[in-house]
């Protein structure tokens, strides 16, 4: 792992802790951005091939951001109703899962585009057909 990445990760952690301690929300976004910058530096310096773990990292980052903002909201000391926290925890878990899925799909598309095989053409045709079908279905419903 590159020294620059480690430094950026440490800075991100420090900024996140500061943001949580002093209750300043912009520092949460800055901390996440710094963590992302460290990851970008790692990728750029190593000139690595497509990172398959990027969706996992995306899920972790959105979960971290959600939990950090939740922690700031808890400073208001509003008593939750029964199951309120569990519901929000489920929302955070769903967001992380969604990030994982969306990231996986995006990476798969990128991989397809980069390989440029017949599969890309098939996928494009399928997408166009699906779009047409969606328009037709919407038109029928209105009629």
């Amino acid at each position: 792992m590159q020294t620059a990445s480690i430094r950026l990760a440490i800075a991100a952690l420090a900024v996140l802790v500061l943001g949580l301690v002093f209750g300043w929300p912009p520092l949460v976004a800055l901390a996440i951005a710094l963590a992302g910058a460290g990851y970008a530096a790692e990728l750029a310096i190593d000139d690595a091939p497509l990172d398959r773990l990027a969706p996992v990292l995306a899920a972790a980052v959105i979960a971290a951001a959600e939990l950090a903002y939740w922690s700031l909201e808890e400073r208001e000391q509003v008593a939750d109703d029964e199951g309120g926290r569990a519901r929000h925890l489920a929302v955070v878990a769903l967001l992380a899962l969604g990030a994982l899925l969306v990231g996986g799909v995006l990476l798969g598309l990128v991989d397809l585009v980069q390989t440029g095989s017949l599969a890309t053409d098939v996928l494009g045709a399928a997408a166009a057909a699906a779009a047409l079908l969606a328009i037709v279905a919407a038109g029928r419903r209105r009629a």
Partner: protein
Amino acid sequence: MTRTGSPRIAGYAFLAAVGLVGALALRRPELAVLAAPFAGVLALGLSLARDPRVDADLRLDAERTIEGHAVEATVSLRSPHSVDRLEILLDLPEEVEVEGGRSPRAVRLTGDEEHEVELVLRCSRWGVFDVGRLTVRARDPLRLAAWTASFPCGAVLKAYPSEIALRRIVAPVETQVHAGSEVARVRGDGIEYADIRDFVPGDRVRSINWRASARRQVLVVNERHPERNTDVVLFVDSFLDVKLGGRSVLEEAVRAAASLSTRYLERRDRVGLVGLGGVLRWVQPGMGVGQLYRLVETMLETGVEPTYTWGDVTRIPARILPPKALVLALTPLLDRRFVGALQDLRARRFDVAVVEIDPVPLVPAGPSELDRLAHRLWLLDREVQRSDLQRVGIAVASWRDGSLDGPLEEVRTFRRYARTAHV
């Protein structure tokens, strides 16, 4: 409802933008993968967010309570849409606290269904309190936006003073003409035996004391003391107040006045009230439960208002102080104007007694030698005031806390042995 954005919106927009720009600049799709969830949450959350149009009101179980007792409050919430998280904040005065249930608290609302939240309020002191405003804040499931609305409750909670333990009260020297529970000094029709005397034409046969008549060989009749009521005027000093650690001499004076008025009214006495201070408050002497409510409601308005006028007894309407009434003063003896008013009343031949609400434990001496000297001088000055009052025949008893029986016994003892002086 007023819509406000969560800090998440700015943060996620910043992260999505930085990630996408970074992905383009560095030609790394992984950064777009990192940025996509933030953009997705923004798009999804803002498209789902809508004004929940929450309606809320607050009902109190009772308009009147006693300080320290609980009152149930019900917050009713309605919304045409489901609200994942609705935060409720009841803006209460300092003296009213939420004992059962919590405020602020969050609930989940189902669309078109009324949701009720039970709270238990408790007043830490007596007074009239405006329960204030109910503020609600609704959040969308992804907590990107919040809608805030404030509802005036319009509920007024009256907390009556708590009762102080009191077994016996101070009886006035003279009674009035109406029937009551106090044995009068005069003789007439009654139950309490007074004396015997020779029969005179017009005496009722049933009052003849046959045993004494047989012994003396002349007709002798019994004389009795009638049971009469009395007039009592409670004189509350509201010129100054001393507070320390949740204790206030004015609050205790009002508690004592409320307890005394309850006990006197139970005996069918007529009770009036004079609050002498920055603002003069009075209630004409009267009897019954209605009078008790009038007295207590007037006491609830008692507070210290600044004044530079010399509050003497000439300000008090004459009908408030009936002849032969007992004037029972509750004062911390901090203001010379009140002491002067008491001496003035005594000079007008009113029967006056003082329960001193002792402020000395609430006024500790300062750290320096000069402060301690000043404190000692102040204590001496208080002694002089007490002595001045006692010299003109006014009983003074000091009360710190707990039962009022001790100070009232002191007053009774003083009045039993002291000579009545007219100055």
